[in-house]
């Protein structure tokens, strides 16, 4: 139901376009007849509600239409881009969660002392960072000056030609492991480093904040204090009880930050010339390629809805007080 609304809104918004999609289709220097023919072929001369109806019926059959910019089916374009973007986002989240938990626990166990302030500062920096700026700074420092990491792309050309990677899942790291292509694995990992770091800043900040807050809460609870009084080692308390509670809230917070990270990924991809859904969507939006825009938005919205649903389910599973 909600997804239908999303489709409707996007369709309306993208058809207010003052541009001429037929002109985009035919290329740079077309003749008048070519534009006319393209207009007919693309069905642009039909009234708008007819176009919407056609779009919906195609959608139900799984046909997302043809991108006016790339002349490929939107479905194939989105599918190729999606795995690349997911690889980036998942890596970023992994880094963010691991680093965030460490810093958050450290911060909570030294509350109101210097380490706590440092941790909180790091968290706030992460959350306040404009993602595109961080990406560029990382490029300047690690790529341009120190020459440690590459400036962009998913794989270097030499490696992709000499040690071609077979695409099975679309995730380069997984595919290279499955095919024992060690060189490709190393190369993909090397290229993944900076983009995921840049993207990890925001979820890192969120994680630290969440973990710290929850752990402080738990540390104040009566059962913690009684546990301490009973003589249980403090480290055990920290990690086993406090962290477990904290993690569930963090997962929820991360789920909610997924949307923000997704849009951060868009800008990140453009800067690192990462061939993912973000680059595709951004280029489609800038070219006013409405089938591609619709397709990307729908796929992203569906993902977003799924993630939110998963978060709700997870929440209900963990906490019997919360009903779906």
């Amino acid at each position, binding site marked *: 139901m909600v997804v239908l609304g999303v489709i409707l809104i996007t369709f309306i918004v993208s058809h207010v376009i003052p*541009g*001429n999609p037929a002109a985009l289709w035919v290329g740079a220097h077309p003749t008048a007849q070519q534009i006319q023919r393209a207009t007919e072929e693309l069905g642009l001369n039909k009234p708008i509600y007819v176009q919407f109806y056609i779009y919906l019926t195609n959608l139900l059959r799984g046909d997302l239409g043809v991108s006016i910019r790339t002349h490929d089916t939107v479905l194939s374009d989105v599918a190729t881009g999606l795995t690349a973007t997911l690889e980036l986002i998942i890596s970023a989240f992994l880094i963010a969660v691991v680093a965030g938990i460490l810093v958050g626990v450290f911060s909570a166990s030294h509350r109101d002392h210097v380490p706590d302030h440092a941790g909180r500062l790091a968290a706030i920096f992460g959350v306040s960072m404009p993602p595109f700026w961080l990406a560029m700074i990382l490029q300047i420092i690690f790529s341009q000056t120190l020459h440690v990491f590459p400036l962009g792309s998913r794989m270097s050309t030499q490696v992709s*030609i*000499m040690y071609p990677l077979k695409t099975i899942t679309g995730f380069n790291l997984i595919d290279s492991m499955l095919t024992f292509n060690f060189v490709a694995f190393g190369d993909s990992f090397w290229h993944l480093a900076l983009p995921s770091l840049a993207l990890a800043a925001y979820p890192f900040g969120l994680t630290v904040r969440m973990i710290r807050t929850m752990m402080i809460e738990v540390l104040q609870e009566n059962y913690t204090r009684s546990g301490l009084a009973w003589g249980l080692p403090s480290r055990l308390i920290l990690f086993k009880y406090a962290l477990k509670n904290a993690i569930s809230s963090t997962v929820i917070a991360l789920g909610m930050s997924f949307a923000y990270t997704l849009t951060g990924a868009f800008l990140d991809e453009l*800067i690192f010339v990462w061939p993912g859904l973000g680059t595709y969507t951004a280029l489609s939006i800038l070219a006013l390629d409405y089938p591609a825009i619709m397709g990307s938005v729908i796929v992203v919205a569906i993902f977003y809805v799924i993630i939110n649903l998963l978060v709700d389910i997870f929440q209900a599973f963990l906490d019997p007080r919360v009903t779906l």
Partner: protein
Amino acid sequence: MSQVKRNLWKLVAIVIIVIVVAAGALGYYYQTQQKPYVPKIVTYAVISEMVTADPSTEFSNSIMTLSNLYEPLIWYDPSQSPPFVPALATSWESSNNSQTWTFHLRQGVKFHDGTPFDATAVKYSIERTMTLGQGAAFIWGPVSKINVLDTYTVQFILTSPTPLDVIASASYGAWIMSPNIDNLATAAGFTDASAWFNAGHDAGTGPYMLTKWDPQNEIVMDKFADYWGGWKDDQFDKAVIKVVRDETVQEQMIKSGEAQVVQQVPFADIPSLQGDANVKVYTSPQYQNLLGFFNNKKFPFNNTLVRQAVSYVIPYDQIITGVLHGFGSQSIGPIPYGMPGHFDDLPKYTYDLNKAKQLLAQAGYPNGGFKLLLTYMTGDTREEGTVEMIKSSLKDLNIELDIRAMTWTEQWSLAQGDPSKAQDIFVMYWWPTLLSPYDFLLNLFHSESSVIFNLGYYYHPDVDSVIDQGYALEGSDKTQAFGLYKQAQKMVIDDAAVLFLWDLQDIHIVRSSISGFKYNPAYTTVVFFYLLHSTG
């Protein structure tokens, strides 16, 4: 759990990690030792993606790929005189007031699919292009009949005097393909040849064959061993075109050697590249210029004096040095520098504030007072810098210019609507399909029944007739034809029909370990990989 047990688990975990890392390192080492033969690969980083691969309909960025896979009858090479160089045709002549053209074809040439090249292939290719009627097919408009006189001779009958040598060497729509493509397509399970092409196949005679077609990211081509031109040892076995949509990443790639040829780097950084011994910067004329179309149908630019006044207040030199960092030159007329048909002795406007004010006063608006709209292409930094300079200069005439960035289709839509509501200045690049001044003059200054590219709405029948006359003579008497083209150019310059801003210079950066690079402005953005030799 007990302390001992916990320590044991920790030990196991460490051992497992060590084993995995060691295995990975060993595997890496083993894999790299497996490749004794390293093919010679040349990688060309480009800024825009490609779209389609059908040589009959392609009219966009795939020219970079297709020009290495296919060949036309004639190459246009401005460094030669006359600029027509035999490709698939070894000689040609025209008769009957250039309404009949006969081409003698090269023998011993094969298509990539094994089919021998002959006159039937030529007839098939041109007719296919004409029938599909897309892309640059319009260039074959005057062709009424193609006759196969014998295996290696083909004849074109035209409806009017036309320079068919110019058409046969055009940058698009002139490629020759194997007549076997429909069979190949159906055999591979495709509905038609177009679908077959766009799935990543080619059917040309060129030095390279298409191996991988991922138009938004990467194109890989392998050498065609039976190419009629033959091969030397130091030429490249594989050519890769990689789409890198960012100038700064391209710059880094050429500096690190990850790409051996790049197309676009920030102009401001080129001086430092010129000092780098690992790369060589090639500059050459580019048949592309930037024009600002005055809205000739709307106040105030319907007044010639106002147009001329504005033409005198543009800081041309500052734009060339500041925005283009010297990699370009002020336009003299609509034909770009380096292209036959460009005449240095044509009049040109210079920055002269007093003259501008004078003209404006003459027109009746000594204090300016206009509010105008200029549109330009979003995301193009050179256009952006140029229009910002224009905006700032027009303030001196007390004209307020609103500069608005739009996508191409948006801009074009606006201009194709009601001229009284369209923009006042439309900034746009132009580059030719047909390698003749006619392309510029026809598309940009000739009267049109519906607005296509004459985006200044400059409709003058006397200019039209000069243009048409020129083209009619270009097939038979080039000198006279070019004389007429020059006349037409003078008319539009005197009239200040458009703002003649600048001619773009082409920059390509190539690693020093590669020799033989030569840019041909007739085939924009194309790197002919066959010409490259590896020296290092």
